[in-house]
């Protein structure tokens, strides 16, 4: 097998068809411990929610409709599309010991359990009550979530980028092109190929003749 294919095989995790997705990412050690290669578990039926219909985004404020913490509002920390789960900050918690060793009993922490998306409702920011939400288009053509009860638009939550960059406060480094240079248009369409144009500009003259070759 080619070396690149072998290396990429090691990098990407291949998951069997009846894999049970949990709260751990499949490439982590914890997930490998819970789902070793030969393990087969009872199948979980996940309601197929189309990607266009999905309305709960990371960072949204939602209210719980069913469960122990019914009626409480919290921020969404993580979203699991495979199981239709959301994890809210500090809600739907159970307590467990973490970092246990032979002599130390471990730290007692509250850990959140995932909740199904159907058991949770988005909160309308104007009156802070739970509503049903629909995706609609504004007059400008932007796709937004509209609350069905009040008709108000629920804005998308501002999530920090994974690399920590805030676009408004960015300063170009020595190797970065300035915005004007990057957006400047220098293309003049012509009937020459890239190679011909570059050869012209650099003054390369190709005087060699092509030998007869056969294509089959």
């Amino acid at each position, binding site marked *: 097998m080619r070396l690149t294919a072998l290396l990429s095989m090691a990098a990407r995790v291949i998951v069997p068809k009846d894999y049970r997705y949990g709260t751990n990412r499949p490439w982590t050690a914890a997930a490998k411990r819970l789902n070793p290669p030969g393990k087969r578990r009872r199948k979980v039926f996940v309601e197929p929610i189309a990607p266009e219909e999905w309305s709960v985004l990371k960072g949204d404020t939602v209210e719980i409709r069913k469960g122990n913490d019914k009626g409480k509002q919290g921020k969404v920390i993580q979203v699991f599309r495979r199981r239709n789960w959301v994890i809210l900050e500090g809600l739907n918690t159970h307590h467990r010991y973490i970092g246990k060793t032979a002599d130390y009993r471990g730290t007692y922490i509250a850990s959140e359990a995932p909740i199904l998306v159907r058991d949770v409702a988005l909160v309308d920011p104007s009156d802070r009550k739970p509503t049903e939400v629909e995706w609609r288009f504004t007059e400008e053509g932007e796709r937004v979530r509209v609350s069905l009860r009040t008709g108000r638009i629920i804005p998308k939550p501002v999530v920090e980028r994974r690399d920590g960059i805030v676009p408004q406060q960015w300063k170009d480094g020595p190797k970065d*092109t300035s915005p004007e240079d990057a*957006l400047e248009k220098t293309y003049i369409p012509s009937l020459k190929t890239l190679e011909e144009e570059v050869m012209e500009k650099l003054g390369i003259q190709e005087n060699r003749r092509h030998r007869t070759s056969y294509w089959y």
Partner: protein
Amino acid sequence: MGSATSKMAASSSAGRVLTLCKQFQNVFRISSATNARQGAVSSAKCQTSLLREKSPIVTPSWSNPISSPGQYRALHTTISRRGLEEFFDSPENWGEANVKSGAPWTAKQLRTKSNEDLHKLWYVLLKEKNMLLTLEQEAKGQRVQMPSPERLRKVERSMIRLETVAKERESALRLLQTGQEKGRPGAWRRNIFGYVYWYRFKEYAIPWYMNRRYKRKRFYTPKFVEPHIRLRIENYLRERARNENLKKRRLTKLQERFPQIKAPAS
């Protein structure tokens, strides 16, 4: 001034890219090798510590004894002559855990650039990629994390997009001038296993009737293979029926548990 830059930054938030140092941006506009040499003299104010060797324009007859201009050119067409230092980052970034870098070039931005600019950008990106790969390898050798590995991925993505844009332009020109969609000739052929596939031609120095290895390739299906083809078709139909039944059973089970599902079209 600050608000103008921040507005520009906000409007083109995807516009931060990797390219030559700002001081050399006027080199980008210079087109031919001869002009580049004259440009080095005119942009003398841009000479920094990077231009260590003396400028090649000083005595052209002495430094370049070859008289015919068409056949011989200097290897470098830019002012920067840093040699092996180009394989390494600038010294202020040595030993840092995080080196910040801008966004990669998008195909939309690359489509507005001329062919010559794309050609130059390709080599700039290539050198940057070489530098990052050296860094990666050295980090592996010293068993240390490479600082900001996402730079390598950004450069690779930019190069892929550049190649896509160049291919688009070439294919548009080819379609216009010849009406051919593919640059490389080929044909639909049947192989000995009965599969019909797009066979891509190769370039040879001798015609096909003189090529012994090519004549041994058979582009037809022998008679004794046909029963096996029928069995293969049967297997395929059986598997297709099995998959469709499986999908139907899954859908009915899902509808039992989640009655609000509408049967999807697919």
